[in-house]
């Protein structure tokens, strides 16, 4: 059997913000075709990990490596990471009044297409592409004419994130609490979108508090994060245990699985 290719490897990553350490030695390997779930309490470092991978300028890496397809990402600008195929789905997508959603999406898609050696899309070609993808997240066309996330409900913002993911065709998608703030119908739409976009050549990382998202998207691995480290790794069963017993029972650092 062919060995699956390694897409992302995080090696002993220490990082923080404004002098405060948040990640204290994260190790993680993600291969193509895999779906990983990272679970943990508020403040355990899950969101920080996703932002550090995406290159948020306010976070500083003190040591460690983030290797994406054999290249160290840590020195790259956020836009270069995205163009290489790293996608971050925001927990709180930013509202940008005055920038039309469709214009934003087109600029983003054309930046990625340049890297993929595909031709730049003009307004009309792009509209066709967007309309196809709108169906994945069951969004209406009028969303495109509004400001980026401007006045969108929580569910609409998350669907807009998945639309961006669909359009940018990333190799790895890290989705930070994509399920938060969604009602059950919206959760199903978003989850179906994520499942549809996942493939054997891609990887997906779900950051979540709750098991319910994992009923819709079946993870291959579940990691528990605490105090900036991954303290336990298991399969779907681990998430079920966690839901039943709470995070309290996973306090023991002796459980640490490296």
């Amino acid at each position: 059997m062919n060995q699956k290719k390694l897409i992302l490897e995080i090696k002993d990553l220490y990082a923080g913000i404004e002098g405060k350490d948040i990640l204290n030695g994260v190790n993680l390997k993600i291969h193509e075709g895999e779906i990983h779930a990272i679970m943990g309490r508020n403040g355990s470092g899950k969101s920080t990990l996703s932002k550090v991978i995406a290159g948020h300028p306010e976070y500083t890496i003190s040591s460690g490596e983030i290797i994406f397809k054999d290249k160290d990402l840590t020195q790259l600008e956020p836009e270069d990471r995205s163009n290489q195929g790293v996608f971050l789905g925001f927990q709180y997508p930013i509202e940008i009044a005055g920038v039309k959603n469709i214009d934003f999406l087109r600029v983003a898609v054309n930046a990625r297409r340049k890297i993929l050696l595909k031709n730049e899309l003009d307004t009309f070609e792009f509209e066709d592409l967007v309309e196809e993808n709108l169906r994945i997240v069951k969004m209406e066309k009028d969303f495109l004419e509004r400001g980026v996330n401007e006045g969108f409900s929580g569910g609409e913002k998350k669907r807009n994130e998945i639309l961006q993911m669909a359009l940018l065709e990333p190799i790895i998608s890290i989705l930070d609490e994509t399920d938060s703030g969604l009602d059950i119908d919206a959760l199903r739409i978003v989850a179906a979108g994520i499942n549809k976009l996942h493939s054997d050549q891609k990887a997906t990382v779900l950051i979540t508090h709750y098991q319910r998202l994992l009923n819709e998207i079946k993870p291959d691995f579940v990691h528990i994060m605490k105090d900036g480290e991954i303290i336990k790794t298991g399969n779907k069963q681990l998430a079920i245990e966690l839901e039943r017993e709470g995070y309290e029972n996973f306090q023991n650092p002796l459980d640490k699985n490296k």
Partner: protein
Amino acid sequence: MKKIFYPEWINSIPSNDGVLEETQKLAREELKQNGIPKKSSEEWRLTNSAFIKEFFNLPLNSNNTKLKLNRIDNLRRSLVKLEFNNDSIFEANLCNGIEKLSEEEIKLCLSENSIRRKDFYDFNKTINEASNNRLIGFKINSKEIKSLEIDIKAEVSELVPTRVIIIVEEGLEVDILEIIEGSRGASHSHLIEIYIKDFSTVNHAIVSIGKDSAKLMASILVNQEKQSNYSLTCIQKGWTFSRLEQKVIQLNGNAKTNIQGLQIANNQQELATHSRVRFNGPNGYLKQIQKSILDDESHSIFNGMIEVPKIAQRTEASQLSKNLLLSSKAKVDTSPQLKIIADDVKCNHGATISQLSNEELFYLQSRGINIKKANQLLINAFCNEILDNLPIQESTWSLLSKALENIKSQ
């Protein structure tokens, strides 16, 4: 003995022996007596007076510049275009729907608007009246006239005074677009007065773009009768020094006013907007938003006064100043002010000064958009709130589209 300012310069200006004679004489006297406005005056406190002095060192553009009126009809609307050039002003070729003001009417307008207050020195206007030999005044009296374009362009280091008086008769709807361009040290002194009669709507935009040390002083004086609508959008970009003074009076209240402004500055440019809106009657409405984008060591000044006297009950007025700083050395002085005597009114005002948001930039970058493009998107978004609301269809006005492209190429 009191020092007389710039007598040589003032005496060198050609005199008018026609309809402007009296106004000009008075203005020159006033200019000689008062000279450059003093720093002690609130209105001029923040102005760099070195810029003003430069106006007095310039030769006057004395080609008997006139307005050319061209009527261009197309499928969508008929457009009347005015350009100042070298024919005599009263020989302008007027068309149906536009009627030249008689000398008596012009004199009446001048005297009504030129009552000189001892306690208030209107320098912008005085320098225009003292130096100006070119004025066009007309009435719009037919629904046929939908759009009017006024182009004022100067490309040499001269003082270029221009003055336009427009009376919009009852029940009409007119777009007025002024494009003011200056380059190579040209300095404009522009005065526009608009009288809007009952039940009329005027959408007025001034797109002013300067480069190569050009300067602009402009006054916009608007009188609104009842049930009239007036929208004003003023865009200032690229002037070394620019000062727009807007004065809108709702003569009997019961009218609507919308004012928007956008200043875009870099280097050491100083762009100022002084705005005064007065409600002389009840049930008036005003919405005003003033924005600036400042880079390098540029300086933006906004002084906004809303006057709601006792007679102006049930006035609804809001004024907001929003400023975007792109550099730590840029400077904003903003002062939205309300003077309210009436007790039954809804009025509010506010000001914000901010930088580009790091979170917004990161969001755009995380979607593969480089930092330069991301900056540009956010700056354009800031402008679009004003530009999208331009009361005039961009597509109809080729010059405006060109000017807007220029603005967006920050």
